């Protein structure tokens, strides 16, 4: 296989972003970020990409609230969420493991998830580690719920879940995941063994399409250079783009 796992994930996510006008990505999300930059290039530059916390890729001038206002206005088509735990109803947990509040494993906190998951139409869940530890039957704490009663205002929600093993899409009506494809070298049985929740699947599960040589060349060339601004360490490790020196002293 020519493409690395990271490259496969980037190209697969880029495909999910097709048609979006504006995609926002977190500062610590190099794979989704690279996917967004690739998708932007594939759109002929029409797609806007915002990388939170990046100077060059951050279009905000109204403080930290603007990202959320912008999403609330319907100006953000896609966003990425992860989770220490994600369950079969697409509930995400960014808070911790065990009984809240005195949790023995405590993560950062919910950040914007309890809002953005409701208002961004295409929320893509991305979690590389695909295990029964991360993909659980029921999360210990719902930072943001995967679905809502019909009367709750919710133009947004989960669209897909991508891991190092496979790609799921979320079925809003059934409030369940459906396996879309397994990545090259992985098996449906293996996915089932490593997933803590039950999911739907077609009779024959396709293999995730590998990047074509043109896309791979684009990614490794032009896009790798763009990725180096918000994600210098990632660009250096994955594409060998030399990181610019960064020094600071008090």
């Amino acid at each position: 296989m020519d493409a690395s796992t990271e490259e496969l994930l980037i190209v697969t996510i880029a495909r999910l972003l097709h048609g979006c006008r504006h995609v926002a990505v977190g500062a610590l999300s190099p794979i989704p970020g690279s996917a967004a930059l690739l998708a932007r290039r594939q759109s002929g530059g029409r797609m806007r990409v915002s990388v939170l916390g990046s100077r060059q890729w951050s279009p905000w001038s109204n403080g930290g609230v603007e990202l959320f206002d912008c999403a609330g206005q319907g100006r953000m088509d896609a966003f990425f969420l992860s989770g220490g735990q994600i369950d079969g109803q697409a509930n995400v947990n960014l808070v911790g493991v065990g009984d809240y509040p005195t949790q023995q494993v405590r993560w950062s906190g919910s950040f914007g998830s309890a809002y953005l998951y409701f208002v961004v139409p295409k929320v893509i869940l991305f979690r590389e580690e695909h295990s029964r530890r991360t993909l659980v039957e029921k999360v210990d704490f719902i930072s943001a719920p995967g679905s809502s009663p019909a009367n709750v205002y919710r133009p947004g929600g989960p669209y897909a879940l991508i891991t190092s093993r496979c790609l799921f899409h979320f079925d809003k009506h059934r409030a369940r995941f459906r396996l879309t494809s397994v990545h090259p070298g992985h098996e449906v049985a293996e996915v089932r063994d490593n997933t803590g929740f039950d999911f739907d699947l077609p009779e024959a599960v396709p293999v995730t399409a590998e990047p074509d040589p043109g896309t791979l060349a684009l990614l490794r060339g032009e896009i790798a250079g763009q990725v180096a601004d918000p994600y210098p360490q990632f660009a250096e490790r994955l594409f060998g783009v030399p990181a610019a020196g960064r020094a600071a002293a008090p």
Partner: protein
Amino acid sequence: MDAALIAGSVQELVAAIPDGALLCVPRDGSGVAMAATRALLRGGVGNLHLLAVPSSGIQADLLIGAGRVAVVEAAGITLGEYGLAPAFNRAVRGARVRLLDATCPAIHASLQAAEKGLPFMPLRGLIGSDLVRHRPDWRQIDNPFGQDDPIVLLPACRPDISLFHAALADRQGNVWVGRDRECMTMAHAAKTTLVTVEEIVEFDLMADARYAPGTLPGLYVERIAVASRGAWPLGLTDRYPPDGEHLRLYARAAASEEGFARYLEEQVHGRRAAAE
């Protein structure tokens, strides 16, 4: 303008922060007053209600690890690319802090309610999140403009003290916060605003067409102190990047109680105290 507007030292500035204060601070990179935080740690203040707008890193971790914080209100506490916040996580496990877990826009909305003198602000989302279950101070109502349309209302939050670091201030007390506009909201919402700055300029920031749009008027500023590189080891927007090496050093040290104590001794007290 009050002659005492510009404090003689950062230590003098933070002396205005009383025990038990609701202390409001910005997110990493957007004007975190780290020199002032070290000064605070050298003083005796405790029992703080720390409100992060909307998240915090080493600043919260230091204050929590040193036992100065009773309540943590935030959408996230993390060292970002340097990992989870070790002292915070220990305090959670040991039930040594009360948690008010929130989501970013809820924190912004509560401050904006105070900024507007409103009792509350509505916010979409939230419904069905366990955050709501643990926040009895949040209310759900039926949107009066809709039909069977639940929406959450967040009460106004008026900090006792907003504390942040900025690039410039002038002698009228105007502070240039530039792009870090949440610092403006924090000041509008707070009873008292204390600011450290890189430097004092000798012109009126509000009179300059280019600076004015990013300037917090002196009207909202109680007191200012100069602290060169006052956000270190964090960065300051458009001035300097974070000191990654030092943050990595902190993350490693704080992984144990002993390492945290040693860090405090070396980087807050001891020779650092003399230098700042």
